[in-house]
């Protein structure tokens, strides 16, 4: 398809543009970045029934060619042909929300002035008709000077008319000429009003379903209550539903390990494959169900239009720590894994706010902390019921979660106090109309997330696992060695050296060693402890065998100190890696590592000393 022409898909956010893109391209999409910026570039391919092949670029949603966010800058630059690495598109498909023509037409008029071949896709025409809105399409087409095609992106076959129109669409690969000068906003507004008055008939506006729902969901008391319930249900689902798939994956990884062990003779290669490669990928894969389930809910809530309402309700609270409601979604995602959470900060326009959100995202209790928390709580917290209803172990876990959120807010607040006197940022956020999430978009969105997560995280973690395997296996123990092999390796030597540093906070040499491979990813520490204590099981078995061992040898202050350490410590190379990508600099990941380790040490120190004093 070397001669496939390129279409640019343009529109404001929430007009169904991405649904249309998904319907046209299916899974034939490629996600990357625009040159030099951290804005997502989505390209896909499709063929019309008549056999014409097209490439299509889903440009970031924009309200205007007068760009205010990095996303909008990219859209403007691509359309004008000034974006680095992008040829100007051969044709433009402008997606318009038929239920709100007035808001959408303004930018349509802006873009028509570029003089590029253009089609308007009048999307959500079904919703408009349901509301009694009648649009004279031929007349609209005549007033705009471009073809206007009705589409229903969420329905199968809803793109047929567009495909038919594209058969005869003549894009011209002309050099972009300077756009016609833009009239003043008032004149443009007058023109839009005139066109709408001419082409649109609608019944008198009474309260829509959205408004009625918003009265409840944005109510100062009911709203937060509903939000709390929704969040609670989501977390219940994430932890409840994920159990079975996680067990399946662990079993699968264990099975693979067994097969390799049976096939290969014992030795370096077997060890590398079983412990390094399979063990390494296994420890990443086992979290995929939780991440996918959490993202399923996040995407569904986003599709339904509810997430901006959550941002509205939390805006005041987040404002107290120098953020806005927009930071809610990235921070929520960070409960699954900070990597996609930090990537989601691209939607935050204000650079300072975005940076602070990135810096506190790792404090959100991510799913990788669970194996460590589970191990220590299982070993040291008795299985008791408190108040006849609450499991003591569950309570401690909940406290750790709250500690994560509280520390994030504290750091945010500190950043706000220490930072320059920033003028209050405007919010101006659209709350799109509610609609049912579309299964197809959800499926494609989840597939994308899974792919990105596995590719990026799996890549880094896998290589690091292998590296750390080397560090933990060489040099080999001398003959007649009495300690576990790992103590003689490079990792062991580093750990023993670190023990000097960690002794004041109660970590013995086993813990100190385990923290070294534990730098790759938080969950690795459990496996590393197993290795140090010379255990050879995997997964849950390690926890079960380790728990009594550490219960006997550590002591409660050490256990609590380790928990406090894990609330803060950046034991995750992937997070630091993605921070480097998103900030385009080494300063921020290093600063993040420094401040998090400092907080971790402080918290561990206080916890250890206080616990020691209380017990004595």
């Amino acid at each position: 398809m070397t001669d496939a022409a390129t279409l640019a898909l343009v529109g404001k956010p929430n007009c169904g543009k991405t649904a249309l893109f998904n319907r046209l391209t299916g899974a034939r999409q490629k996600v990357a970045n625009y040159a030099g910026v951290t804005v997502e570039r989505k390209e896909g391919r499709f063929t019309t029934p008549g056999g014409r092949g097209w490439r299509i670029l889903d440009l970031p949603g924009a309200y205007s060619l007068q760009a205010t966010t990095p996303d909008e800058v990219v859209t403007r630059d691509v359309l004008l042909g000034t974006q680095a690495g992008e040829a100007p598109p051969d044709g433009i498909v402008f997606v318009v929300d038929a239920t709100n023509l007035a808001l959408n037409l303004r930018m349509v008029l802006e873009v028509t002035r570029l003089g590029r071949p253009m089609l308007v896709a009048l999307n959500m025409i079904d919703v408009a008709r349901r509301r009694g809105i009648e649009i004279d399409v031929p007349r609209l087409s005549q007033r705009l000077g471009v073809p206007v095609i009705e589409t229903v992106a969420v329905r199968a076959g809803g793109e047929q008319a567009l495909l038919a129109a594209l058969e005869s669409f003549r894009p011209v690969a002309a050099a972009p000429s300077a756009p016609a000068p833009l009239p003043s906003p008032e004149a443009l507004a007058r023109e839009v009003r005139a066109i709408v008055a001419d082409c649109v008939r609608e019944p008198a506006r009474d309260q829509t379903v959205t408004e009625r729902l918003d009265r409840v969901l944005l109510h100062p008391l009911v709203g937060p209550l509903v939000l709390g319930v929704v969040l609670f249900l989501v977390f219940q689902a994430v932890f409840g539903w994920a159990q079975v798939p996680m067990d399946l994956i662990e079993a699968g990884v264990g099975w693979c390990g067994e097969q390799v062990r049976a096939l290969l003779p014992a030795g370096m290669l077997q060890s590398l494959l079983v412990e390094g490669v399979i063990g390494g990928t296994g420890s990443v894969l086992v979290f995929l169900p939780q991440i996918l389930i959490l993202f399923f809910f996040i995407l569904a809530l986003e599709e339904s239009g509810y997430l901006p309402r959550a941002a509205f309700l939390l805006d005041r609270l987040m404002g107290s720590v120098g953020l806005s409601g927009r930071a809610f979604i990235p921070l929520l995602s960070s409960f699954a894994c900070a990597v996609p959470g930090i990537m989601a900060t691209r939607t935050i326009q204000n650079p300072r706010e975005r940076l602070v959100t990135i810096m506190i995202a790792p404090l959100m209790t991510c799913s990788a902390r669970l194996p460590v928390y589970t191990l220590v709580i299982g070993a040291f917290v008795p299985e008791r019921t408190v108040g006849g209803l609450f499991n003591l172990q569950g309570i401690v876990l909940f406290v750790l979660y709250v500690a994560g959120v509280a520390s994030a807010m504290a750091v945010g607040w500190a950043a706000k106090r220490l930072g320059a006197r920033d003028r209050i940022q405007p919010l101006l956020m659209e709350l799109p109309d509610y609609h049912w999430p579309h299964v197809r978009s959800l499926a494609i969105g989840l597939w994308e997330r899974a792919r990105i997560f596995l590719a990026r995280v799996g890549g880094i973690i896998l290589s690091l696992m292998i590296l750390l395997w080397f560090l933990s296996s060489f040099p080999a123990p001398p003959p007649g060695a009495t300690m576990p092999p790992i103590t003689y390796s490079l990792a062991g030597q580093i750990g023993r050296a670190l023990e000097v540093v960690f002794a004041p906070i109660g970590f013995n040499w086993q813990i100190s060693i385990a923290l070294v491979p534990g730098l790759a990813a938080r969950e690795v520490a459990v496996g590393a402890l197993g290795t140090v204590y010379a255990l050879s099981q995997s997964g849950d078995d390690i926890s079960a065998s380790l728990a009594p061992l550490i219960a006997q040898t550590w002591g409660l202050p050490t256990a609590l100190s380790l928990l406090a350490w894990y609330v803060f410590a950046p034991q995750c190379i992937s997070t630091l890696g993605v921070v480097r990508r998103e900030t385009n600099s080494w300063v921020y990941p290093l600063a993040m590592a420094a401040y998090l380790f400092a907080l971790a040490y402080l918290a561990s120190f206080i916890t250890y000393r206080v616990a020691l004093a209380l017990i004595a």
Partner: protein
Amino acid sequence: MSSSVAPARDVPTLRSLQKGQSATIADLRTADTAAVDEHLRRLRELGFLPGEQVRVVARGFPAGDPIAVRIGHATFALRGFEADLILLAPVARS
């Protein structure tokens, strides 16, 4: 077309509109900084123009900030100081 006269003290702004109330936009304030100017332009682009009807759908808790307003067929959330930029004609019954 936008006025360059500072509004009188008692001109109602969107910030003072109560939940459920409707009003007609009279004008937008003039900008005193470049940042505010850019923000005013964005407000106009989104349809906050003289003559348009706005209705307050919800107000935040506890200080009534941010404010969710319905304008045309869209709903937007604004901070108090943003809503203060939008001057209203004397308030109509909702």
